[in-house]
């Protein structure tokens, strides 16, 4: 792994020689091959790459929804690859997640969706929950939509409700899985501005998985590029074509239209 420039903070997340493959024995497909990288605290890290390169797999490994075949996934100093269910539940309290399709509960209203983590994971009274949800709705310009169901919302509004729900428990790390898929360019820009604003306000560590290249780089303090099992880390997008990894150079050529050195 090569790191272009140094980031000041200690790592919130660390992958050490992680391998992950899928499929049955005869058709096993190695998605991540001895992958190592760190995500610094309080910064925004963007994980980019083509479809099927393992970006979402990395998110699921961070959340403990998948276990690596070998290697370690560390959250702070805790190795979640070997954790039991209960310990994993405690670590998951550190996370907020915005899923690709927002993963809102169809049968709950916007208000109930946002209030769900507060109702289930805190001892706040009904009134306190109402106040907190109302404040978040206002912050994310969703006031007036409390009683709507997810099916009645536009794509951009669903993402905002998903973000509101993800931020309710004041997470230390927020993971975004393809947050602008299906949105038009204007809405995409609005969502990026919202992400940047919320990250500045709340100071969480953000990990964004996206294939929206190069637009997504505007949000990034650190960029992790994945292609054909290889991975490289950058702090400056202009350095991407100069990667030491051939597969990353090839990817850079394809996405940025620049000749690799």
């Amino acid at each position, binding site marked *: 792994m090569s790191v272009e420039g140094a980031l000041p903070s200690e790592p919130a997340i660390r992958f050490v020689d992680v391998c992950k493959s899928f499929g*049955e*024995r005869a058709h096993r497909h190695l998605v991540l091959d001895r992958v190592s990288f760190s995500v610094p605290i309080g910064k925004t890290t963007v994980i980019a790459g083509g479809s099927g390169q393992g970006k979402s797999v990395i998110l699921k490994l961070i*959340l403990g*929804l998948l276990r690596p075949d070998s290697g370690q996934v560390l959250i702070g100093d805790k190795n979640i690859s070997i954790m039991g269910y209960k310990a994993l*539940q*405690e670590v*998951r*309290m550190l*996370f*907020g*997640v915005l*899923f*690709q*399709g927002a*993963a*809102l*509960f*169809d049968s709950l209203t916007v208000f109930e969706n946002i209030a*769900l*983590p507060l109702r*289930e*994971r805190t001892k706040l009274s009904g009134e306190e929950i109402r106040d907190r949800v109302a404040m978040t709705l206002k912050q994310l310009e969703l006031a007036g939509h409390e009683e709507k169901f997810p099916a009645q919302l536009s794509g951009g509004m669903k993402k905002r409700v998903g973000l509101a*729900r993800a931020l309710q*428990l004041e997470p230390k790390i927020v993971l975004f899985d393809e947050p602008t898929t299906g949105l038009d360019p204007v809405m995409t820009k609005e969502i990026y501005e919202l992400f940047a604003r919320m990250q500045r306000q709340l100071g969480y560590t953000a990990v964004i998985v996206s294939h929206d290249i190069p637009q997504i780089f505007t949000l990034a303090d650190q960029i992790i590029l994945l292609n054909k099992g290889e991975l490289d880390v950058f702090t400056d997008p202009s350095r991407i074509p100069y990667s030491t990894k051939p597969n990353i150079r090839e990817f850079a050529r394809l996405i940025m239209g620049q000749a690799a050195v």
Partner: protein
Amino acid sequence: MNPIERRPVSLLRIVGGIGDQALYILTDLGNMGIFLFFSLVGLCTPPFRFKELIKQLGFIGAGSITVIFFTALSSGMVLGLQGYYSLHKFGAEGMLGSAVSLTLIMEIGPMLTALMVAGRAGSAMCAEIGIMRISEQIDALECMAIDPFRYLISPKFLAALISVPLLTALFDVVGIMGGYLAGVELMGVNSGAFFAGMQKSVTNHDLRLGVIKSFVFALLLVWICTGRGYFVQKIRGAGFGAESVSKVTTQAVVMSSIAVLIFDYLLTAVLL
């Protein structure tokens, strides 16, 4: 390559295929076993979701009353007519009440109730959980450190365990009414003989058998239907997306119906 040289390779492939299928079935059974364990643990883990339980009781229980009523009425009337024609040959029409009530309480009531609930509510539960799985809603629960078993599955288990025995009782009562209508009102069997025969032949043991069956069938159908939905992405040959949910829902109803029929025989053989 001649056929003799090819044979070991084909044989290996066949043996490998059988082993692979056996491993898949064992893994699937293991997953379903763990699923049942966590669902039952979720039943006893606070905080309890009373609102969700009431909602599920409404859906599984109250929502099934119409279909149970008509199935029971039709079954009871058919039993009354068939029973009358069989018993009439031996001049034993007075036994009609006994024959109808015992058949309904011990066999037809619990079995048909479970099959109807599997078809109506079981399929819906499987599809609901399956859609929640493929649209990442269950992953979202896990990411919020909310136990999906306690939040989502266990209220359905409890609602089925309460609803199915009550629906079975309703089935028995309506079925006996149907048998009375067909036997007494239509065919002219003596009303007193009908009820006296029923009172004389139905014992606590028969009622207990019906109740035990209804509990076991409820557990089987809710376990299989919610479990197949939960593991929709792990079921071999189910495909992806909406297609996988539709295939797995069909599979869940078929599997739970077969399980009910098999356990009906086993419980009768053991408990009769």
